[in-house]
């Protein structure tokens, strides 16, 4: 994959931009959400990285990134991220072929909404001891216990893919329908209304043997690779959000007059907008570099390239959202204008899938060798 986007990717981007612009729902009530999701499913986006053998489009991460960038630009509230960026990479990395063929077709069609439970904040740097859910073998099946305090899209998901700590050690991947007996879930009041969360409590949940989806031994390595893909696609979403913050700010400051001239003509304002662009283009370059190094889900993942994209995109988005509020002046602080929505989304994105600092530490470990080794 090269650093420039292909014609197909551009066409995908145009379609996505046109569709989402007409269906922005970040500030509305919940009522429109399912209609939007059905529209998105109708366009085939949930199928983007699902292999053709599993009823998907079989496209690469670059195409998924295009969709998430556009959805991040419009702050779309939909389970697209939990599906394409989170559940699908996890299944493709950790589940057996049989499990993939059974589960992915419905997910690709958008008929089922899925999420993932795999430790607080879904960090790729988690180990078995850090997982919230425990699983023990009980004769023919499994029993799951524990509380997942914050589950993304946990209020609407039909099922969760749970990475649990196995009693005998290591990790296992389980399919957990939300309506299983022993599951109770409680919606949580998130600041970012476009990223709903819920708390799931599992109390002696019994699952059949087939609910375990992984070939034993694959999850320990596969989970961190899958969540690195999630972090990479989050970077794409954040690039879209940061770009939108700049567009909104430039448009607003060109319009807004003070001292008899557009605010955009003041050098202090121009320089701040230019700084936003410097950060955005850095993030865009980092994302392009990481996508070039990680074209698909197979094979080893270039973790350090993901770190570059993750750190730059999270930083750019937070910076651009904060500057958007400042440069909008008073209205930037209001509910009515969009900067506050980006500010909340940017804050959210700095905490999940490995914080930027955790990724920096991973890079430092690669440069110096792990710190513990010296101590």
């Amino acid at each position: 994959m090269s650093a420039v986007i292909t014609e197909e990717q551009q066409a995908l981007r145009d379609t996505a931009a046109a569709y989402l612009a007409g269906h922005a729902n970040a500030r509305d009530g919940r009522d429109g959400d399912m209609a939007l999701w059905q529209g998105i499913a109708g366009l085939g986006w949930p199928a983007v990285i699902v292999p053709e053998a599993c009823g998907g489009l079989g496209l690469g991460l670059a195409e998924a990134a295009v969709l998430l960038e556009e959805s991040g630009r419009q702050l779309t509230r939909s389970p697209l991220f939990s599906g394409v960026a989170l559940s699908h990479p996890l299944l493709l990395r950790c589940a057996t072929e049989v499990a993939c063929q059974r589960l992915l077709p419905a997910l690709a069609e958008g008929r089922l909404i899925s999420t993932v439970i795999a430790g607080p904040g879904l960090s790729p740097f988690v180990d078995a001891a850090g997982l919230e859910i425990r699983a023990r073998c009980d004769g023919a099946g499994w029993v799951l216990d524990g509380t997942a305090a914050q589950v993304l899209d946990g209020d609407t998901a039909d099922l969760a893919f749970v990475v649990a700590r196995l009693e005998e050690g290591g990790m296992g991947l389980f399919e957990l329908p939300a309506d299983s007996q022993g599951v109770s879930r409680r919606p949580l009041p998130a600041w970012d209304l476009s990223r709903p969360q819920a708390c799931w409590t599992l109390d002696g949940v019994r699952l059949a043997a087939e609910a375990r989806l992984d070939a034993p031994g694959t999850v320990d390595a596969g989970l961190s690779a899958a969540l690195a893909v999630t972090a990479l696609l989050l970077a794409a979403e954040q690039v879209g959000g940061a770009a939108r913050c700049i567009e909104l700010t430039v448009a607003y400051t060109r319009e807004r007059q003070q001292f008899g001239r557009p605010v955009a003509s003041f050098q202090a304002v121009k320089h701040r907008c230019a700084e936003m662009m410097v950060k955005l283009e850095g993030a865009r370059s980092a994302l392009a570099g990481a996508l070039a190094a990680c074209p698909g889900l197979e094979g080893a993942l270039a973790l350090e390239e993901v770190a570059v994209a993750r750190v730059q995109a999270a930083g750019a988005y937070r910076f651009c959202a904060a500057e958007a509020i400042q440069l909008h002046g008073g209205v930037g602080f209001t509910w009515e204008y969009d900067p506050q929505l980006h500010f909340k989304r940017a804050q959210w994105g700095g905490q999940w899938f490995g914080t930027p600092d955790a990724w920096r530490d991973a890079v430092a470990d690669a440069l110096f060798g792990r710190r513990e080794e010296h101590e």
Partner: protein
Amino acid sequence: MSEIDEKTFRAEVADWMARHLVGRFEVLRHRGGPGDETAHPELRREWEQVMASGGWIGLGWPRAHGGRELPVSLQVAFHEEYARAGGPGRMGHIGETLLAPTLIDLGTPAQQQRFLPGIREGRTFWCQGYSEPGAGSDLAAIRSRCWLENGEWHLQGQKVWTSLAHDSEWIFVIARSTPGSVGREGLSFLLVPLAQPGVEIRPIRQMTGEAEFNEVFFDDARTAADCIVGAPGDGWKVAMALLGYERGLSTLGQQMHFSHELQLLVDAARAAGVDHDPALRRRIAEAWIGLRTLRANALRIFARGESGVGPEALVYKYAWSNWHRSLGELAMDVMGTAGDLQADNDPLRRLQQVFFFSRADTIYAGTNEIQLNLIAERGLGMPRG
């Protein structure tokens, strides 16, 4: 010429460097370039002739002018392999990459025949006379004057921040040929020999203690009537065309150089025993991430090719210069109190030079403030103040 495979070409460069950057040239490895221009200037001039004998000067020039007409991808590969091998900062780059393309496009056949061979053979070195004490960011405020008299151009005025003037034979200058003209009008682009009574070169001692830049004074300096590029009055156009030839082909080479500095910093952190410090580790990781980002940015620029200047090209100078400045700060923080002392061993001295010299990176070739204006106006379409 048949298509050259990039991998073969890279191997050829690496092999040539391994065979030539040895013996008495060994001391030049990783030396020279901005921040280190005073290192072994005489030996580096000789090195240019070695380079020329290897056929490495004028890689992108048309064959009609003695070049090799290599595609951009191979020129980029050359710079990268050259830097990877620790090739010294080039003494001839102003002539090779700025003046020569200008002469090839806008010079007369006589000028081409007279000046290009010396550049290609690594014998004639050039410097650039644009900035003046009153014309920095506002370059069009040039006051140096020139006039044609008795079949010669006469030149009166002063240039400043002229890199490598003390190691050059010639300077190209923009000066005001139309008396009373202002701004971009009435300027001419002259080629002027430095070895003459009317030219005085005074080094400027900079904060590192070294002198890489100069003031160049012209007091009725002379050059031949045909040493003008373009017509009288076209000077601004020619000067801007010249800047346009700097297409960033050596960008990846520059990054290789940065990468070497970052490695020196990592080694220094280990040696100082601060590689356990979590905060410094994070900052060093951040520096590594920043450098990978610059690389990805450069690849975006090259991927866009000839199809115009994209946003990534617009932000690049601001991005690399500020990254480099932070690297210098980080290096000093790694050294701690040891950084108070002028190091006499090479890696630490080098990092200290980065710390000081990188303050110039955000000033020359468009200050941070000018860069941000350009980004806002050209990249975001914001109105001029």
